[in-house]
């Protein structure tokens, strides 16, 4: 088949020794950049782009792409160990990753996240190889009406995240939505809530808020609980007896989770603008409604970590499809890659893959190799990372605070973002203390502006009519999918739960803590 000839050609390009060195450097840099809170793949790419100016384009793109998906591996490590998401796409990984570490299962959680990342990344590349042309049509069907419906679908995940006190959950989401309206109104250009400050024209960014709410908020809360007074191993237990490797149950329980998370993540990733963050949140809530033990979610359920991890890595592969097949960047990171293509004198667009086959297939082939390298790197590095939680909290906490602060600053060299992060940290502490939902706030901040913009664009296009949602194939597709999720899933869940109850006897009736 042509396909394998192409892939083989790509592999022969990618496997040259110098290119492999670039690939490994990229993978390592990506992991490190991912670990530092604040640095996501987009910031890492932008900062390192100038380094590639003098390089051969194929080696350079292999390195940049490896930074991009490598950051997705690294981003989860602090989510699990410190409840501090490295970037937005790993927020969902804190929900069950951190509770797992608290239960003494940091080692298995880290191994499983590496495996999930690898599966997501690899399934993503396989789907690119097989289906790139077909999936370019998915991206072509997305206009404002579809984005609005997608944002609504994303908001359904709120129901899962809101926790026991639904009023406070809704209030949290509203606060996030309100923060999302700060900045220049996209449609009219009018400034909203900027109070004349130029710093706020661009709106309130997601990263300082997420780092503040989760990272600093958790840090203050740990002080409240007195963790700084205890000796080592206090935030999370690393139990030598329970060990480092996941047990059989972890593998058996999550084998389908891996596949579901990967496929869902890939499909969402293909849609420009939706990206890894929404993919991971959707995968989490989807998995929870699929699970036989939804009550364990948020308390350290392995599937709750595996699903978003597989999804965010698959999504970062999926985002390569509109970039390679249409020349349309689906995310901030792929936008930097697009800028790099232009710098190297290439013209991204529908003819890109036929005009530059060595480049395109070399890149795709390198992603197989890069994911394997990252899996190995991660597993080797885990014993090292686990040492982090053996440092007494009273010493670790100030260091975490410093890294969160400087990481936030360096993303856009802005002190305002640092002030925002600290405010979010203090608010996040009180939110945790009084039963609010920081996750719902973050979701409101991400999806709120998306929904508002898309609805206003849609109504401008349709001249005020709502029928447009039933006139477009893409919209109908999303509505049908949502209906299936809402109607069929609860039914399956009920059947599944009954079966599960019969098998296990009584299911623990512990209160659902939410997240």
């Amino acid at each position, binding site marked *: 088949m042509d396909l394998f000839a192409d892939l083989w050609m790509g592999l022969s390009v990618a496997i040259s020794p110098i290119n492999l060195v670039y690939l490994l450097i990229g993978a390592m840099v990506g992991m490190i950049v991912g670990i*530092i809170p604040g*640095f996501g793949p987009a910031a*890492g790419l932008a*900062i*390192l782009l*100038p380094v590639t100016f003098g390089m051969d384009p194929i080696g350079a793109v292999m390195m940049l792409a490896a930074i991009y998906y490598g950051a997705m591996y690294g981003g989860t490590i602090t989510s699990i160990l410190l409840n501090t998401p490295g970037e937005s796409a790993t927020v969902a990984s804190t929900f069950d990753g951190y509770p797992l570490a608290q239960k003494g299962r940091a080692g298995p959680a880290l191994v499983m996240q590496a495996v999930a990342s690898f599966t997501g990344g690899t399934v993503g590349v396989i789907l690119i190889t097989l289906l790139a042309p077909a999936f370019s049509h998915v991206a072509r069907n997305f206009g404002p009406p579809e984005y609005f419906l997608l944002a609504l679908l994303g908001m359904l995940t709120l129901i899962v995240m809101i926790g026991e*006190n639904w*009023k*406070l959950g*809704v*209030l949290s989401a*509203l*606060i996030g*939505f*309100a923060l999302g*309206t700060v900045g220049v*109104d996209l*449609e*009219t250009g*009018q400034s*909203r*809530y900027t109070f004349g400050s130029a710093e706020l024209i661009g709106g309130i960014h997601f990263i300082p808020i997420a780092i503040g709410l989760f990272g*600093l908020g958790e*840090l*203050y809360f740990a*002080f*409240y*609980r*007195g963790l*700084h*007074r205890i000796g080592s191993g206090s935030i999370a237990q690393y139990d030598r007896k329970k060990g480092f490797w996941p047990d059989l149950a972890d593998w058996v329980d999550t084998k389908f989770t891996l596949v579901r998370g990967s496929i869902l993540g890939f499909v969402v990733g293909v849609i420009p603008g939706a990206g890894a963050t929404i993919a991971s949140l959707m995968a989490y809530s989807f998995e929870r409604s699929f699970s036989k033990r939804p009550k364990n979610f948020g308390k350290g359920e392995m599937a709750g970590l595996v699903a978003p991890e597989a999804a965010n890595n698959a999504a970062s592969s999926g985002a390569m499809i509109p970039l390679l097949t249409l020349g349309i960047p689906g995310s901030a990171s792929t936008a930097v890659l697009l800028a790099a293509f232009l710098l190297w004198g290439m013209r991204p667009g529908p003819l890109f893959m036929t005009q530059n086959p060595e480049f395109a297939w070399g890149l795709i082939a390198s992603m197989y190799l890069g994911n394997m390298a990252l899996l190995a790197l991660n597993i080797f590095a885990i014993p090292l990372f686990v040492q982090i939680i053996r440092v*007494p909290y*009273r*010493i670790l*906490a*100030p*260091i975490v*605070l*410093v*890294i969160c*602060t*400087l990481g936030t*600053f*360096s993303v856009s*060299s802005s*002190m305002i973002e*640092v*002030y925002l992060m*600290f405010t979010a*940290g*203090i608010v996040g*502490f*009180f939110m945790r203390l*009084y039963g609010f939902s920081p996750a719902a706030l973050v979701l409101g901040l991400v999806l*709120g502006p998306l929904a*508002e913009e898309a609805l*206003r664009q849609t*109504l*401008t296009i349709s001249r*005020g009519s709502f029928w447009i949602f039933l006139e477009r194939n893409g919209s109908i597709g999303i509505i049908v999918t949502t209906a299936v999720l809402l109607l069929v899933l609860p039914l399956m869940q009920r059947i599944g739960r009954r079966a599960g109850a019969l098998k296990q006897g009584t299911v623990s009736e512990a209160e659902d803590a939410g997240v």
Partner: protein
Amino acid sequence: MRIIFFVVILAAGLMYSYVAFTNLDFLTMTGRLGPGFFPRGIGVLMVVFTLWSMSAELRPSAAEGRSDVGGYAGQVALIMGFGVAYVLSLGLIGGIPATVIFLFVTLSVLNRNRLLQNGLVALLVPAAIYVLFDRLLNAAIPEGVLPLPF
């Protein structure tokens, strides 16, 4: 404390709604949804939900069983205070010196009587950050306004 937090949110919600209703138009001149359409809705809902949650809070039965004080509230205030001082000093003396001072002072309080350990952490961590950010990643570190050699 709990009630104060709600009052702060209520005040923020009221201010948000006030701006939405006075400065932002509900519809644009051409009859499209205006910049104030969503903020007005969000603002009103925020106020409603805050009041609703507060009324539940104020019922005496709700207050029972929830220990408001009991954690190390003083310690939290302390680390928050150190954090704020750190952020303010960043712009004054620059990222690396501020980090050295912050780490040393904070550790002297939290990790008492271990001068050597604290001193090492306060020097080595900023050094590692400097190498990683400035040398390897070429990322920005806050610059101070005071003329220091860093």
